[in-house]
């Protein structure tokens, strides 16, 4: 695709790192492939609060990104929901051009999730991946006390580890890359810390094709 916008919706504090990892790794891979790429967080969603919805953005383009200095992805081609309940919460596909992709981290099937998706005619595919199970996710995300203290900060201030995608972001990145081809597998895989979950996700995706876009 010549110009692609990717928006990740995630929950503040406890899953904020996942969102950042997804957009940063995809942008970095795109740069490594010689494309133009930009990654940033939504400015007004931060500083994030626990469970608050926050957005991360990524833009990938073959030519220079001339709308770089704008605040939001107005027309996201790919939307990722890091936490499944957000499917009920917003019109996250607002502005999506036809032929878009929606990726959700959930244990439910696309059949079940579809009822919550507003105006799914915008979508070409709905992808569900049980990222929490694939990453062998130990903590329930409202048991804050069980999280490592280095995750409990806003905008990642207290993070010690520099690892990219050590947890549930890895299967989500695999899902995005596999179903959209926004970057190449071989470029992004070396960056991912949780390679096992990344690989496992590739065969555990539930993809529901919806409204294809005629070329």
């Amino acid at each position, binding site marked *: 695709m010549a110009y692609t916008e990717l928006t990740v919706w995630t929950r503040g504090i406890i899953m904020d790192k996942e969102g950042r990892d997804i957009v*940063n790794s995809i*942008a*970095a891979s795109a*740069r490594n492939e010689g494309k133009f790429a*930009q*990654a*940033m*967080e939504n*400015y*007004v969603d*931060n*500083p994030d609060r626990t469970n608050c919805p926050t957005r991360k953005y990524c833009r990938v383009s073959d030519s*220079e990104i*001339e*709308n*770089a*200095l*704008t*605040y939001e992805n107005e027309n996201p081609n790919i939307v990722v929901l890091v936490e499944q309940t957000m499917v009920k919460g917003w019109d996250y596909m607002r502005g999506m051009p036809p032929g878009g992709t929606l990726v959700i981290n959930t244990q439910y099937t696309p059949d079940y999730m579809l009822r919550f998706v507003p105006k799914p005619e915008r979508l070409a595919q709905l992808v569900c991946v049980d990222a929490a199970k694939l990453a062998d996710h130990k903590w329930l995300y409202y048991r804050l006390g069980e999280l490592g203290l280095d995750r409990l900060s806003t*905008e*990642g*201030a207290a*993070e*010690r580890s520099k690892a990219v995608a050590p947890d549930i972001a890895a299967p989500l990145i695999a899902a995005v890359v596999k179903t959209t081809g926004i970057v190449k597998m071989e470029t992004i895989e070396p960056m991912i810390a949780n390679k096992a979950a990344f690989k496992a996700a590739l065969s555990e995706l539930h993809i529901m094709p919806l409204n294809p876009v005629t070329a």
Partner: protein
Amino acid sequence: MATEVAKKKKTVRINGCVASAQAAKYADVDVIAAYPIRPYTATMMALAQMVANGELDAEYIVADSEHSQLSIAHGASSCGARVFTGSSGVGVQFAYELYSPISGSRMPVQMMIADRTLDPPGDFGSEHTEALSTRDMGWLMGWSCDAQEAFDNHLMAFRIGEDPRVLLPQMVCQDGFFVSHITTDCDLPDPGQVKEFLPPYKHPYPLDPRRPVSHGPQIMPEQGPPLQLERARAMEGAVPVIEEIHDDFARIFGRRYNPWLEEYMTDDAEVVFFLQGAHGVTARHAIRHMRARGAKVGMVRMRTIRPYPTEQVAASLSKFKVVGVIETNMGLGSVSSGGSLYAEAVAALYEVPQRPLVFSFMAGMGGEAIVLKEFYWMTNKMIEAQKRGKIEKRTHWVGFEE
């Protein structure tokens, strides 16, 4: 003060705030005075991580407020420490009392400013008003338009400000969000290069029990004039130093910046945008597209505003027929009823025999992005003025006029 830093050059993807923090790390600052205010907070967090990880050996002091922050900076610098601090928006103004004492006592404190609109109400978006409101306080001041430039400007500012011929504090400014929070590629140097470029900080009269001195005593009014004259001399004396150090930077790091102005497609331009900061990035795209449609438009981006490059601005702007000053700041009640940049541009051009038409655009207020359509509209206004031979009015409000 030796620290563990990376041993080779590398390219990283970081945002402007982290770039500023990296610059402070490469400059091996001694004292960091911090107080959180968004968007500068990201720099504060990055520095905290570096100090906690042992990457940077510095005293990290979280102050009670911005006023306290700058007081700490003043004190630390007076003892001979290389100090790094920063703020945004109303925080910059809260510390106002300290700006004149710091520059007047010739303490080369470095302050990173990530711009933010002043209250009311609460708005994180970028306007330059807060830093510009301190422009007469005697600090060196200039704007970067991306993370790389921010990093480079910080390093150069240490060298310039600490130069024994200058000894002035520096405000290295960048637009909040557009520069501070968007990640782009940034080449980080080899520490050896930085070592070559930046000698240690040495103040001639630090507070030292072994050689006691008094800083900032009480004076009589008659001692005022010479002291102020000295301050003015210092600011003027910075001009050749700035040029010299930009040359040295280019020699060592391979990146050459014009210290005062970036000119973009100005060779045969008839109308130009005169601006500072991140909107120059979008301006370049807009200019290319308009040129493809036949408009003779260019951009002059001011990199340093203090000391004001009067001669350079006069020499540059006098080449054009129309100058549109893009004001991303509020100068309420100013001579143009608009922003603060217009008046100084016009004053710089006053002595020039062939003066261009000069007027201003209020754009990007509150941190709103300036979209291409608006650049087209502004260009049209300049072309119309050129055809008419005179300006319509001194200030246009972009997006709110026909």
